[in-house]
């Protein structure tokens, strides 16, 4: 067999699991126990009737490691499905951040202006602060946060990625 590729790539993996106690610990324990990376992780119940949660994991690794990660996830008993969105075709990935910016005068106006170009919404304001809500790819959120830095950025709360394949087929 030819040498497998050593190239490290970023993969977004969707995992459908039974919504039962300990399932998240199982998934996280698998990653830490076997030394895999977690760049971000998002989890919430997505099908109440069937009692299913969806975990979206962004990870990195060589093709052999990524294959291992999927196989290891697949053999957990409460796991129903593992889908590699990065491999399976085009997909949409979004993160959300809430960004608190404190300032007055020119800086305050500037932060509003930038928020506007990023389509971030002010979801709270006081006479010297805003909380912006921004949705998008991780890189867009990174850029927004960087621009807010000199304008009085004081706090950020960020989610991991939510992701779904494009087109009419479910995973």
């Amino acid at each position, binding site marked *: *067999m030819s040498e*497998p590729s050593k190239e490290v790539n970023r993969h977004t993996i969707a995992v459908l699991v039974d919504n039962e*106690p*300990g399932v998240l*610990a*199982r998934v996280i*324990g698998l990653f830490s*126990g076997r030394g895999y990376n977690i760049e971000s992780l998002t989890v919430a119940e997505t099908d109440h009737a069937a009692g299913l949660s969806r975990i979206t994991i962004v990870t990195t690794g060589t093709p*052999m490691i990524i*294959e*291992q990660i999927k*196989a*290891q996830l*697949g*053999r*957990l*008993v409460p796991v129903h499905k593992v889908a590699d969105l990065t491999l399976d075709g085009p997909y949409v990935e979004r993160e959300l951040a809430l960004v608190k910016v404190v300032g007055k005068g020119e800086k305050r106006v500037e932060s509003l202006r930038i928020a506007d170009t990023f389509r971030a919404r002010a979801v709270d304001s006081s006479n010297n602060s805003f909380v912006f809500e921004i949705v998008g790819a991780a890189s867009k959120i990174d850029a927004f946060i960087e621009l807010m830095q000199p304008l009085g950025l004081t706090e950020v709360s960020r989610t991991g990625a939510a992701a779904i394949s494009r087109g009419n087929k479910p995973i």
Partner: protein
Amino acid sequence: MAKKKMQGAEIVIEALKEQGVTEIFGYPGGAVLPLYDAIFNQNAIRHILVRQEGGAVHAAEGYARSTGKVGVVLVTSGPGATNAVTGLTDALMDSIPIVCLTGQVPTHLIGNDAFQECDTTGITRPCTKHNYLVKDVNDLAAVVHEAFHVARSGRPGPVVIDLPKDVVMALGNYQEAGTAAAEKYSPRVKGDQSAITEAVRLLGQAKKPIIYAGGGVINSGPKASKLLGDLVKLTGAPCTLTLMGLGAYPASDKQFVGMLGMHGTYEANLAMHDCDVMLCVGARFDDRITGRLDAFSPGSKKIHIDIDPSSINKNVPVDVPIVGDVGSVLADMVRKWKAAKPKQDKAALKKWWGQIDQWRARKCLAFEQKGEIIKPQHAIRRLFELTQGRETFITTEVGQHQMWAAQYYNFDKPNHWMTSGGLGTMGYGLPAAMGVQIAHPDALVVDIAGEASTLMNIQEMSSIAQYRLPVKIFILNNEYMGMVRQWQELLHGGRYSESYMESLPDFVKLAESFHAAGLRATKASELDDVIKEMIAIDGPVIADIAIDKAENCFPMIPSGAAHNEMLLGPNDKANKPISEEGMVLV
């Protein structure tokens, strides 16, 4: 459905009965008293009282491996559960089906640092195939049924069910085993047909094929061993087995080239290195097998049959992966081979066997028994010869004696060899032998042991006495942690730091104090008589065999080395220093 409500503990016992359980290994305590009460009130399930919970799990492992059934364990909360952790990890590494019931403090006290509380599901999550904490008495039966299904299906493994005391004391409904569990967890059994066809094609064209089989064949059941034999005969290929696979193919057959790996035979390892097509059947390319990965069988096409997709392409990338049960896939392969009748290159195969015979001619397992100092290889060989013709089960501890047992005791049938391979747990063999003997009361069960390992679970001699189990503990006593000493000799300039076994007990008197017979051989001329007497005694025996203290295990592929850099004997080491990368490996 106006069925009478039952107490939780009765529900558990009823579910065990429905799962066909007849023996459980356990140790009581406060949190499991209701379960012990339920055991007291029935006769269908026999409880075997061990002397330490670790012993219970190893006993259940021996029971499971020698019968193909699920081994069952019952322990109390806190220290009972933590004592079971080593055995659970052992069972996970070696794919042994176990269901372990653990007591737990009542649900309202969980998280309170209550007396004898520990986070059992948290602690055992990484060392079980799956685990459960049952919080509702009405879930009990279904969870027990599911646990058995999970433990035995796909790649077998240990499953823990944590049982809070209030749950087993509450009244609830029993639920019969149904199909729910199978719907929830159903690993793939049937292999991909086009991959199987391709595998047959590759094997049919091979000029230098080898079949490398492992514990998965044993896991799959005796039928898989039979099919493996058929395929080896059809293809005419040499067959090698891992430590966990011994017995899956008869050692007495001429197509068997011995165990492979770190202490495998010269011919098996060189054939692995030089082959052009390798068929791996239910084995997992463990580091004891592959040696240095980038030098592992560099020129071969590799086919891998495994029921666990995570075993495939984990260490070694393969060309034809086949996910499925060994038995099912081998049946398909045999059928397809017979239908396709591949035109093999007979001349090439003859040449290949010629090469293998040359490697064999090195006689890598040769030893010389001269004088009165007993060579361990000779002791095992005589044990093998003198137990021929009987139904004999062998368990081992961990160390040099384990490797000598693997090399010099020949196994012709599956399920007769129980050893701790993946975790390498000293103290496994004695309780495992107890479990085997419980399942096979009339068979000869011998634990091939080292004196250091024997002391790790010696307390189980008391259980062996209680149940009148005629288990034989055959100690190759070198007064050293021999395997540790061997590595210190090889890698650490012969500085034998803490590997000498000081102040050993008198094993003969120790045996007697445990109501067993004690025998000793210190000279080669005494060996046969001691072995014969050990077999003849109708009861437990510890046979203390004083062996050559300086003997090392060869052949050996030092860690970090390749298959063709094997050490064949003590004089081999000087010219091949161990690499620095090799030094950090275990």
